[in-house]
């Protein structure tokens, strides 16, 4: 474990080692706040990275994570029609057409080129910029299950989970291999010691699938994923357990043999104390409802952040105040600033500076 990560862990155990304050997933917000369009935010590595650095100074964000968009986006990488966001309403890449929608299409799928598919070249440029300033390079992808569902779309994937589970397993295996093929490219370029991996799993939420299906389809791929990650030499792991996943947590904690401390990011649907119970050796990251930062007053934001920090203070392995998902482009700047002020105030009252 390197110094940077140790310092991070110490900080978020409320040991006042550094002045790091907030974590944030905010490509759209920081870019627009810096005067860029959302299209530039997702497509221009230099401008997007400069905006991210400016946002870190202005809003007190820690580099947790620094991303331009998904390093891998399976619908894009496997040959679907994917468009860049064109208005602040979008905030993410748009899948216009999935690569496949039938069995023969799935079976005919070929592994994407790990250096050129989809937006990989753009993500590599963004990673090089991070590396140039001596920072950790973030590798951002969805979970194998989520990526697999993104190849054919959840409407097909959901049906196949019941009707044709072998097809789903095949897609999940392809997604898993793709992740590590591209990750190998990153490791060859930057070295495993300089990479932090960010994995998110929105399609596994219990708003979409049952815990039973999560156990059947997602969990084995998580286990394979962790085994391969551990073999890769990468020790920094950030896992965004996206959405309502309370009933998946027991399964996920059962395979938590990743390097500790990892960062476990949770949405507002999961209680901080619950996440800390299931992942006692890891830093908990969250769990402000993104909708609140967009629609409430700075005073209300202050109250909510204060309450969340009080809850986070009890987490033994450490806590990072952050939103439970992406920071919306439309979040008022004064609300985001309010988060920073609350953290500063909290640190002062807790540590006296």
């Amino acid at each position, binding site marked *: 474990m390197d110094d940077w990560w140790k310092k991070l862990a110490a900080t978020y155990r409320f040991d006042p080692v550094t002045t790091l304050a907030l974590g944030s997933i905010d490509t*759209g917000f920081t870019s627009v706040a810096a005067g860029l369009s959302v299209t530039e935010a997702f497509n221009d590595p230099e401008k997007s990275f400069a905006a991210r650095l400016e946002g870190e100074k202005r809003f007190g964000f820690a580099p947790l994570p620094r991303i331009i968009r998904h390093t891998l986006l399976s619908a894009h990488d496997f040959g679907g029609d994917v468009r860049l*966001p064109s*208005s*602040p*309403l*979008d*905030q*993410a890449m*748009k*899948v*216009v057409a999935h690569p496949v929608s039938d069995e023969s299409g799935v079976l005919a799928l070929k592994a994407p080129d790990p250096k050129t598919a989809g937006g990989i070249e753009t993500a590599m440029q963004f990673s090089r910029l991070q590396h140039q300033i001596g920072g950790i390079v973030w590798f951002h992808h969805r979970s194998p299950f989520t990526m697999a569902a993104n190849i054919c779309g*959840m*409407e097909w994937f*959901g*049906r196949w*989970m*019941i*009707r044709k589970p072998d097809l789903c397993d095949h897609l999940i295996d392809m997604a898993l291999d793709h992740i590590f093929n591209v990750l190998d490219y990153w490791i060859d370029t930057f070295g495993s010691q300089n990479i932090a991996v960010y994995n998110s799993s929105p399609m596994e939420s*219990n*708003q*979409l*699938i*049952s815990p039973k*299906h999560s156990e059947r389809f997602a969990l084995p791929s998580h286990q394979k994923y962790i085994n391969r990650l551990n073999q890769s030499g990468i020790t920094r792991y950030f896992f965004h357990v996206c*959405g309502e996943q309370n009933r998946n947590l027991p399964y996920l904690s059962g395979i938590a043999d990743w390097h500790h401390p990892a960062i476990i990011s949770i949405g507002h649907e999961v209680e901080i104390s619950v996440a800390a119970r299931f992942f006692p050796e890891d830093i908990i990251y969250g769990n402000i409802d*993104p*909708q609140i930062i*967009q*629609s409430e007053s700075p005073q209300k934001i202050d109250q909510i952040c204060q309450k969340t920090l009080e809850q986070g203070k009890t987490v033994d392995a450490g806590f990072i105040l952050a939103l439970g*998902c*992406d920071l*919306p*482009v*439309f979040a008022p700047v004064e609300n985001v600033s309010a988060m920073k002020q609350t953290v500063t105030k909290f640190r002062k009252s807790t540590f006296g500076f």
Partner: protein
Amino acid sequence: MVDQKENQTLYQQLSQAVLDYDEVLSEQLCKKVIDAGLDPVSAIKQGLTIGMAQVGEYYKAGRYFIPELLLCSDALYAGLDVLKPHLNAQNQSQRAGKIIIGVVEGDIHDIGKNLLKAMFIASGWEVHDLGKDVSCQTFVEQTKKVRPDIVALSALMTTSMMVMPTVIDGIRGLDPDIKVMVGGAPMSQDVARKFGADGYAPDIVAGVNEAERLMSSTTQE
């Protein structure tokens, strides 16, 4: 001619086929309804609709999730495709209400909207589905054209939901009596109220109930 008791058994089998997401059986049973000269409306109301209502209960109870709902809606549509050509003009006019549904601009997540559509169809509504990533202008134009009782707006993203007040204003400007309801993962009752919506549905199953409540409030007014 099948007698009354046999009819009921047939309708129960039909509702069970929907609940069991048995698309093939649903289609077969509906063909049997037509071949026996039975009323297609009764088959819909006492078979398909009840089946989807049970699906909704399973969803609320955490027994069914999106994959199961997708297959149940397939079973519903398989049956409806057989029965629909046999509905006469009078049947068609006996609707629970007329609704426009769509996913707002900037948002391409339509799985919830598609399932909501199935729920409304099963409950006897005339549904006009505008699809996904629907502009404010299209919502207003279609409202003017269709003259629905209700317009239902869906959003899955915290950013895209921000266009809802504009759509609601546009519809209000056209006809203040048309009710607007909203739903989707980032929404809440509080946000719906702030946006000026008449109704809010936290999930797919609540959508039809909320629309019925709005229809009832319209009648009372």
